[in-house]
């Protein structure tokens, strides 16, 4: 084997790494490009705000948008307070003992359970056992458990970025532990917690498998009236029109994908930008 000159081998390796990075990044750009190029033409106010027509081959996707928003908002309202409290427990109260190790292991495990297994769980517990039926609330509960580990992890990161000395200063004045958390730690961790929450909203808006058997309906001719209604959901709608209905006009499929993608990406970008912004103007 020829021994390469170290300088030359460095150049060659850097080139290789650069190519790999391009390979990793290009798909994002290509996917977004394909969807926008083919989908942009159908996007109109009418597409966003009207009901589907002709067996979904025409009209708009309003019920799917409304359905997704209602499931996701319910899910976040459930998971955010629980997740933040759990993060407070882990970061501020938990001692380094067996119980804490088990809690952490549980969180790691929850984060790794496949989304379709959450779907099974939601079907078994919320739809069947608690008799909520296929409904917004059953889907939201399923998604909220799935999102719990993510919220806990990001909230914990935000809490632990608040300097320990702030807590000491407050405690040394005789302020109780909870009051210190409530009035010193939480306000300073809030930007981080909120960016985490936005990222989770983005993530669960695109989830299909967990709501497959818990919330989503093939077609509902009206907007949801109560949390116990079945709804259409954007990702599920995209799944149906792209695989289950033959002769579906291609531009409607792309348009639906574009709406979903934009919803998710806009929220992600907002969160990323917000995070950079708050990090820059942090006071400590």
């Amino acid at each position, binding site marked *: 084997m020829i021994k390469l000159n170290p300088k030359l081998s460095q150049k060659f390796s850097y080139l290789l790494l650069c190519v790999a990075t391009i390979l990793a990044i290009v798909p994002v750009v290509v996917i977004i490009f394909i969807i926008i190029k083919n989908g942009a033409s159908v996007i109109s106010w009418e597409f966003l705000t009207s009901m589907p027509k002709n067996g979904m081959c025409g009209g708009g996707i309003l019920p799917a948008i409304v359905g997704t928003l209602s499931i996701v908002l319910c899910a976040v309202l459930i998971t955010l307070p629980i997740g933040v409290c759990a993060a407070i427990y882990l970061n501020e109260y938990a001692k380094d003992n067996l119980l804490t190790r088990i809690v952490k292991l549980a969180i790691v495990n929850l984060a790794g359970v496949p*989304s379709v297994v959450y779907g099974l769980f939601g079907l078994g517990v919320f739809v069947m056992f608690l008799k909520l039926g296929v409904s917004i609330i059953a889907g939201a509960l399923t998604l909220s458990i799935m999102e719990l580990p993510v919220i806990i992890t990001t909230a914990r990161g935000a809490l632990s970025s608040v300097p320990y000395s702030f807590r000491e200063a407050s405690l040394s004045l005789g302020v109780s532990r*909870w009051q210190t958390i409530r009035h010193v730690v939480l306000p300073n961790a809030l930007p981080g917690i909120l960016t985490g929450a936005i990222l989770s909203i983005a993530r669960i808006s695109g989830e299909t498998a967990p709501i497959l058997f818990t919330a989503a309906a093939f077609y509902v001719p009206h907007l949801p009236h109560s949390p116990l209604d079945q709804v259409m959901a954007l990702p599920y709608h995209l799944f149906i029109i792209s695989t289950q209905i033959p002769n579906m006009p291609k531009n409607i499929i792309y348009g639906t994908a574009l709406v979903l993608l934009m919803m998710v990406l806009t929220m992600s970008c907002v969160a990323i930008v917000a995070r950079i912004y708050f990090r820059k103007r942090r006071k400590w």
Partner: protein
Amino acid sequence: MRKSLDTIIETIIFICGMLSIVFVVLIFGFLFKEGFAFFKDFGVSKFITGQFWYPSSEPASFGILSLILGSILVTVGACLIAVPIGIMTALFISEIAPKGVRDVLKSLVELMAAIPSIVIGFVGMVTVVPLVKNIFNLSTGLTAFAGAIMLAFMAIPTIVTISEDAIRSVPWQYREGALALGATKWQTIRRIVLKAAMPGIIAAIMLGIGRVIGETMAVMMITGNAAHIPHSIFDPVRTMTATIAAEMGETVRGGMHYRSLFAIGLVLFIITFIVNFTADLFLGKKKNR
């Protein structure tokens, strides 16, 4: 008054802290309850090693060997693509790219992670699938290979983010030591940095594998969903996740078929538990060093 309010809130916080444990136990319990009922009727070994998945024929056969092989084939294929690309990207981002470029690249990787799997599945269906069909001259492009490509895209963000973390947490002194001895920057990266970051990188790979095994929608749309034992990566396959997602709608609630899908869920749960537990051990090792 103030004191008792504090106590109430702290109790609530404690309960929320414990909920994660409750949920894991509940999930396992529910899968186990339905799965166990199924195993009593059908038998574990027949379930795991049976070659035929004919859930609705008479008599029904619930062998998931072909589904397990399908999952493994797609996962291995995706990892062969995603692991080298992911690690190299992580190295590029953390060691070579200038600061401005690094932030842009990291944001792009994060955006990739945010794209819903259903969208990736759809794009794969209209681009990669026909491409695979034409290039390799197959009767259908809906194959394990096409699935592996799309799943690799989904595993890359996970691998990059966690490996990058691990590489960045290698202390500066390690690099300075090597550079001071006259090693080039690349030699330092390859021999010192990569080695020191290895536990974190292994964890990243494990978590990437976890993500791929659990992936459902994209796989269901691209891999062809044929429940037979695959002979090559260019065969259509059906994974465990896709089976659950595709068939749950047709089952009779509480019936044998319904329960068999929970049993598959149980298998998936156990696999991902082991994968994540191992990843966590490696991450813990990194921290203790």
